[in-house]
């Protein structure tokens, strides 16, 4: 019995090593090409991670990271006891929840619709137009949004036509999230469809033929063939999306918000930006950022577990 176990272990160990070796022999060049990628991750992704240590220190640039004094969890305590803590967490989660609820399905729906279009030229045109906004700089996009919702902007022109009073829509706290989410969908919907369209093209046409023979109409075909076909892709993207539940890009927020709508618009990342870059409080800023990442990490693991249980596919 013991012998069997040891042989098994040996075999297994040899197996991985052996496999790697065999693989290396076969694809030497590919392993060489891996070097720059590894270096990139080590230098630019993992290296800077050591910097999070300043979240636990009273970081003073003159003393350097190692020379600065340890303060433990002081900055975390500051943040947790801050008057704005709950508001920031709530806003971050709410905006993300809206993005998940409306922003996540949008490209799937568009991809399904595009998939049904048989006219090639029309399909290509729609695709090009919808993913164009993805390439516009955020500063420009925000500029466009600010102009659109200004008191004398187009949206107010339309509202005024129907008898509403003119008002700068970005000064109404209740409207910030809709404006943010709508513009986000507009900007990224086309880009998001690419991956789904790729997944759709992988579904075997024979499945559709079989469904047709069984008497399924086009709607039924979507429900029973198309959707299950892209389900793994959807699950993986959903898990990755949930892993970012506590993240909102600060650039767009700080370009759009103003003091009147801090109440709904101020999120953790914009707070970190104000603290770290405007008040030079690097340690505090790092601590808040780390807090955020830890929660994201937890969410990602949870989402992966649930995803695996429900659909059997996950990230790992």
């Amino acid at each position: 019995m013991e012998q069997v176990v040891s042989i098994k272990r040996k075999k297994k160990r040899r197996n991985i090593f052996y496999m790697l070796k065999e693989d290396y022999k076969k694809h030497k060049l590919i392993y060489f090409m891996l070097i720059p990628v590894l270096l990139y991750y080590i230098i630019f992704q993992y290296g800077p991670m050591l910097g999070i240590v300043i979240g636990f220190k009273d970081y003073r640039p003159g003393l350097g990271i190692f020379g600065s004094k340890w303060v433990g969890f002081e900055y975390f305590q500051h943040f947790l006891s801050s008057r704005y803590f709950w508001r920031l967490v709530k806003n971050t989660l709410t905006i993300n929840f809206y993005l998940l609820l409306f922003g996540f399905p949008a490209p799937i729906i568009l991809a399904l619709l595009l998939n049904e279009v048989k006219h090639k030229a029309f399909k290509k045109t729609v695709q090009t137009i919808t993913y164009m906004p993805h390439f516009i700089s955020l500063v420009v996009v925000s500029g466009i949004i600010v102009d659109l919702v200004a008191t004398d902007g187009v949206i107010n022109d339309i509202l005024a036509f129907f008898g509403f009073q003119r008002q700068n829509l970005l000064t109404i706290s209740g409207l910030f999230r809709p404006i943010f989410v709508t513009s986000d969908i507009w900007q990224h919907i086309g880009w998001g469809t690419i991956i789904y369209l790729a997944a759709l093209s992988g579904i075997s046409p024979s499945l559709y033929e079989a469904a047709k023979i069984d008497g399924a109409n086009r709607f039924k075909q979507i429900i029973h063939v198309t959707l299950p076909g892209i389900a793994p892709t959807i699950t993986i993207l959903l898990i990755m999306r949930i892993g970012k539940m506590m993240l909102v890009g600060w650039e767009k927020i700080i370009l759009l918000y103003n003091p009147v709508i801090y109440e709904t618009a101020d999120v953790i990342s914009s707070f970190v930006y104000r603290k770290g870059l405007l008040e030079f409080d690097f340690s505090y800023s790092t601590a808040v950022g780390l807090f955020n990442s830890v929660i994201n990490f937890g969410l990602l693991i949870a989402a992966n577990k649930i995803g695996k249980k429900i659909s059997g596919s996950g990230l790992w």
Partner: protein
Amino acid sequence: MVAKKIVAIMLVFVMGLAVFSGCSKTEDNHGKQSTSGESSPSGSDSADKDKRPSFEYWHPIHAFTAKGMESHNEHPFAPRLAEETGVDVKYVNPPVGQEEEQLNLIFSSQNLPDAFHSNLSENYKGGVDGAIADGIIINATELIEEHAPNYMAMMSADEDVRRDSYTDEGTIKAFGSIIPAPEMRGLPFWGPFLNKKLLDKTGLGIPETIDDWETMLIAFKDMGIKAPFTWPANNTIGFLNDVFSGAYGVPSESEFFKEGNVVKYGPIQEGYREFLTLLNRWYEMGLLDADYLSRNMNKHVKPMLINGEAGATVAHLTNLEQLEHLAKADNKDIDLIAVPYPVLNKGDQIHFRHFLSNVKKEATFITTAADDPVTIVKWIDYLYSPEGIELTVWGDEGVTFEYDEQGNKKYTDLVENNPDGLPFSYARRQLVIHDIISTYAWDEQKIFYDTEDQHDAWERWQKADYENVLPESLLFTVEEQEGYSRIMSEVDTYVEEMFTKFVMGIESLDNFDQFVATIKDMGIDEATAYKQASYDRYLDR
């Protein structure tokens, strides 16, 4: 097959190299071994050059200067200055707009230049004394007192300047940043102005009181002007520069002020309620720009004034001239005049207004990396000598400046009407090494703010004084600083938020008492005590 392999291997190498060179390049930018200084043209032979002492000087480059050259090393006056002082300076210029980030990178990379020019009290946690304690800069007090006669003479000539130049610990805090001309002390550069063409149409006189302003703004409104009053709020509560609030005896932002020797916090005063009530009433009446919050000077306020969509604003002195210049090019008929800071009742005296402090916050600091601090001290002191001021402000006689009939200095046509078509403000910096001066020469300022309107502006704005404004050079101890910023960063956010809500009527002014209570709850009394303590120390300096 072989060819394919070779191509692939080369590709890998190129990519790998790109990664490495990417890193080393950024290192080089702030590295001490920066070679940028060596390209500076020098008239003298190389043997002579070797003998000259030299130091590396990190200094921001003005955007106007940067249009004509990469760095100050290429400036036509850099070699002249080296010759006069016998010191070679290697200038290191951060990219325009990234000065603060670059400086912080230098601090954390520990690759210090010999000297740098910046606002250390705001850009470094703990300010000047903190930077000395952390070993970034040296305490140059004794060196300066011994080796900088010109600077010391200027600093000691005025009690306020002397007080502003030292920290509570007796360290010279800002070497190289004085307004020497008594005529310029306390001069206002920001204030209210309006379009006189519109005012004339209403038949009203120049507004002096808040009521005059209201009558005038209502008249503007009735004439169909979209935004009778607007200001570049830039999504903050800033840029009103105490206009209107001064009439109620409070500053316009989240600020501390003094009454006698007692420090108080503005937004919790009764006057602040009245100030907010006024703005709120004007907003509801449509006298304020409905979109004032998102207004930006260049993008919105300027075009609105030129097109007659706005009647009055608060802006910088240079805007007076610029705007009329722009309007002329557009064939628009405007005539801007500065008007006094409004008062509540005729004859009142305002104690809040914009003014230029005697000691600028940006100054030169000598780092611990400097081998020969005395040379640096002497070099900077040269900038304060009469010859140094002439060279850095005016340049060479006969080339960039000449004397007029009255014996006053005057820029030549090379600067003022540049043959290559450079605008005056660009030419002034590209032809004369203006960026590195730390003194203001009054003769030159007079030329720069030359129009009659601008001189009127000074006269009218100066009717207000700034007795209740706290000096800029108050300093905290490290503990005070920590407590103060912990309290104030929350208070500032809260006040900013509530200010706009009160003005726009989103929050009723009946809740003002609640607002005051919340601020007290956040610990404003503690923060006020810190301010008071630092003000007391300031008076003792």
